[in-house]
Every structure is written in C-alpha cells, then in structure tokens.
C-alpha cells in the first residue's frame, strides 16, 4: 500500500513537471535544449531556497527523475561538500553529486554510438 502511494505521488509530481515544460514548449519559443538548461538551473535555485528538498521527500523519484532533480543533486552535492570540507566544496560538490549520472550517460552514449549504426537521415 505504501508502495502504491509512493508510485502515485511520483506519477503526479513527475507528470506535472512535464506538463509545465510542455506548456513552455507550446506557448513560448523555448527550444528543448533551453528547457533542459532552465530545468537544471531552476532545480539548483529551488533547492537553494529550500523548496525542492521537501518536494523530493514527498514525491521521491517524481522529483528526482525530471531534470530539476539533476539541479537538486548539484545543489545538494555542494551543500554536502561544504559541510565536509569547507569552502573548497563550492568547486568540488556540484559535479561530485552528479558524477554517476553524467558518467553513465557519457559511457552509454559512446558505447551505443560504437555498436549501433547511425540512423539513416529521414
């Protein structure tokens, strides 16, 4: 029952974050790349002012899976690194917090590009 509830919360919050982006795409001239950048920066700022942490506690992967969650990891990484090592954490924390995702994407991207043939141009 708790699992079902957490799935529903993830579905609702994650879905809503996607709807906001869809409205931005349909109603403004923002390109998908700009949306991704905006979401990451928004995630950092919302975490900084203390709004995104509670959303992660509530929705779990519904808040961490959208790209705002990438921003959350950057900000949390910085906070943790500063707490552990002092101001040097400003420089080391962000990418430490997101190292897993970035490395996985680059490794998978390189391997897939090596294994699969390029798509024929449509």
């Amino acid at each position, binding site marked *: 029952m708790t*699992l079902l509830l*957490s*799935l529903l919360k*993830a*579905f609702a*919050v*994650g*879905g809503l*974050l*996607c*709807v906001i*982006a*869809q409205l931005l*795409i*349909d*109603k403004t001239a923002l390109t*998908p*790349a700009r*949306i*991704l*950048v905006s979401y*990451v*920066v928004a*995630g*950092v700022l919302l975490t*900084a*002012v*203390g709004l995104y942490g509670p959303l992660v506690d509530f929705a779990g*992967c*519904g808040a961490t*899976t*959208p*790209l705002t*969650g*990438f921003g959350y990891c*950057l*900000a949390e990484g*910085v906070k943790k*690194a*500063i*707490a552990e090592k002092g101001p040097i954490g*400003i*420089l080391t924390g*962000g*990418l430490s917090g997101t190292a*897993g*995702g*970035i490395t*996985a*994407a*680059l490794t*998978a*991207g*390189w391997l*897939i*590009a*090596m294994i*699969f043939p*390029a*798509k024929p141009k449509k």
Partner: protein
Amino acid sequence: MNKRTYKDYASARAAKSDTPKNCLFAFLVGGGICAFAEAIKAGYLALGTEKETAAILVPCTLILLTAILTGLDLFDGIAKHAGAGTLVPITGFANAVVSPAMDSRKEGLVPGLGVRIFSVAGPVILYGTLASVLYGTVYCLCGAGGAI
C-alpha cells in the same frame, strides 16, 4: 509581401499544435516514467541496496534503458508523441547525449562524436554547475547553516 505579413500568413496556416492533448500525453508518459523510476528504486531497496546508492543507480538505469532504446531507433517514436513527457525526465538528457553521438560518429571520434556528444549535455552541465557554484558561494558567505 513584406516580412511581417508573410509571418502572419505562415502562422495562420501552420498546423495548430494541440496543446491540451500534448499536455495529457506529457503528463501520462512523464508521470509513468517517474512512477517506473520509483518502482525500480523500491526494487533496489528490496535487494538491500543502500538508499544513497539506490538514488544513483535509479537514474543510471533509466539512462542505460534510454541509450539502448535510442540505439535501436525506438526512442524517437515514443518521444514524438510524448513531447515533454520524455524530454524532462533524465531520459531526455540521456537521449540528447546518445543521439548526437550516434549521428556524428562518421565525422570522427574526436571532432565528431567527442564534440557532439556534449551538444546538449554541455550547456546543461555548464549552467547547472555555474548555478551550483553561485549557490555554494552564497551558502558559504551566509555561513553554513545560516539563512539558506
């Protein structure tokens, strides 16, 4: 016909994008991906994975699945209908890394693939990192545990 009237003419005849339908698809697919992520997390935790490790493994799993779907040329078909539903979750980031890498491999491994793999990931990582440096600086200046 001047530029202005042509723009009006063109936009009046452009296919109207169906916003309510797009939003519904984005909600269902995006929500579905996030619920799927939550289910994977529950699976990892049930296997005895530590919470912090699971928090890293879940997005990595989604990235790997997206990379394979992109490689098999299946991702674009889903993304066409899902719009922001596949773009905003980490799947969109993964696709934006894998897809240009595949397309540019023929141009070489360093100037082609090596550069283009960052064509979307680069700006995302750049501005995300800059924002985190700004946050860290303010956080330190305010004194850790201060206002922010």
